[in-house]
């Protein structure tokens, strides 16, 4: 037994953050929130209800609903989860169990801008770990930027790469970091010349015939 009363175990790589925190056994489990007591932003309610109508079983909307709530609240806060639970008629505990399973849902307060640096095998072979360390250092102390390493983002052709608020950029060098952060802070499209959207397919037989015009760079959605 550890000093705080919880049973301490080895860190075993579980996907569930906080799994080893002792539960408060004196607390009653939260029930499905009472619609009369929970205020849900009208826009969020409309979006969740629209999603629920798309599926034979409305519960299928849990992921899109949590994503919508995260966009409104900045993270899957207890308040955000309660609002989704209220509209979807599910318990907050159920939704919390779902939210903690997926890497893109933040169950801790998260800064506004999310920078996912892919550090999986293909990117790390091309220097992604160094890039991640340098980027984390450069963004240190900025309360708005959240840099984390991420599993394969499916863009090994532009390795090493990062997803900056959902916009894929690469290949990145350490020298690109100041410009990346500057674009992010100013709200400009991030590194327009390095965005995936402008990249042609690698197969030489598929390219060349269509000198494609420069596509519009993706704008930072947040």
């Amino acid at each position, binding site marked *: 037994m550890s000093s705080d009363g919880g049973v301490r175990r080895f860190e075993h790589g579980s996907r569930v953050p906080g799994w080893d925190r002792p539960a408060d056994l004196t607390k009653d489990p939260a029930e499905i929130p009472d619609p009369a007591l929970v205020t849900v932003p009208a826009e969020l309610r409309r979006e969740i209800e629209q999603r629920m109508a798309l599926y034979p079983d409305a519960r299928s909307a849990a992921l899109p609903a949590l994503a919508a709530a995260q966009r409104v609240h900045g993270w899957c806060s207890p308040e955000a989860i309660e609002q989704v639970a209220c509209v979807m008629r599910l318990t907050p505990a159920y939704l919390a169990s779902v939210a903690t399973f997926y890497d893109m849902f933040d169950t801790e307060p998260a800064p506004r801008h999310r920078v996912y640096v892919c550090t999986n*095998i293909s990117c790390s*072979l091309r220097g992604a770990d160094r890039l991640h360390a340098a980027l984390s250092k450069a963004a240190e102390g900025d309360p708005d930027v959240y840099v984390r390493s991420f599993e394969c983002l499916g863009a090994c052709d532009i390795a090493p790469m990062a997803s900056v608020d959902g916009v894929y950029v690469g290949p990145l060098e350490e020298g690109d970091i100041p410009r990346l952060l500057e674009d992010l802070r100013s709200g400009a499209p991030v590194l327009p010349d390095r965005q995936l959207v402008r990249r042609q397919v690698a*197969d030489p*037989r598929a390219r060349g015939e269509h000198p494609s015009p420069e596509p519009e760079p993706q704008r930072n959605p947040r």
Partner: protein
Amino acid sequence: MSDLLLFKDIDEPGLSTLAVYEARGGYASLRRALEMTPEAVLAELESSEIRGRGGAGFEMGKKISFLPKGSDIEKYLVCNADESEPGTFKDRELMQKTPHTLIEGIIIAAWAAGVTRSFIYIRGEYELQADVLDAAIDEARAAGYLGEQILGSEHTLSLVLHRGAGAYICGEETGLLDSLEGKRGNPRLKPPFPANQGLYQGPTLINNVETLSTVPTIIEMGGAQYAKLGVERSTGTKLVSVSGHVQRPGNYEIELGIPAREIIYGLAGGPEDGRTVKCWFPGGSSSPVLTGEDLDIAYDFDTLATAGTMLGSGAIIVVDDETPILDVALKVAKFYRHESCGKCSPCREGTNWTVKMLERIERGEATPMDLDIMASVQEHIMGNCLCVLGDAMAMPISSLIKKFRAEFEEHIERVREPQLAPVLGGAH
């Protein structure tokens, strides 16, 4: 080399819009398919002998034929667009640049399988591709390709794009189904297989993006003609994603059965000058590795299976001779540890202990005997879990231990010596 099928005109400006896609002959295959009976469409798909492009390589036509016939029970089609196998990025290219090919393929496959509700489960990280697909689905619906009585036929189909939220396991078909039902993406016990009990407990056909995107081509060419491409039991063309230590990483469309050297060196340019291929993953990081001596192997399903590995998702990851093999093993093992859903003990614990043992080797605290223990851990994972995530780590790790044992042992000795020196040499 054959003509391009999937990558033909892929970079044509505006191909993601309905107007350009139709001008290029898009949706002609759908019109043709709807004039045929579902049985005739299925017969074409069966005679094409196309094998699934997602990883398992199961014949698509056979999969459809496993679905119960008749329209009295609701059946579903789910397109697996959760492309998360490390090293794989071919579906991304297809969805972003020619989303209507996928949509057309889904409508035709649904007709063959008697399905009226379909879903695309796309990984949450692919925001650009999801936006492109959403717009394309809206266009297709407005043009009457989706909805009731498509193009005046008996075929009715709805299509919903569902975005995931970041979990490798949701690429596993039953994990994907649970996730699509709004749950944690835990894999289910099989059997029952999704063809009998899948989404909402109904019969469900699950296919990869590339497989479904090939369907319009098969209808256009005819199944028998398509089957002439490639080699026996590996028909057609395949997109390969080449990454890692090559000079021109990216997606290439190849005819199955060509030598791997032609892909790695011919198309992707091979490692930088002066370096050689130490090892390569032929089908994503879950596949057992091959070495630089295996480069002349034919790249098709059965030849790779005979060589003890797999074609998987068609993702070739090349590692050059300057990379320590321990780093590769650690990277791979850590990924699967993170992504294990935790439902089955052999996978949850096995991935964790493998990482711990590799870290012990890295720190110089291991003995060569630990390599045997680690290899036995891999054996205890394989075949003992609900899904193959554990196997997906066990296969490459055991192949790395087997093929590069000398390098592991050399590392163990080299790192251990300085630590032991003061003990052996006494105090100075």
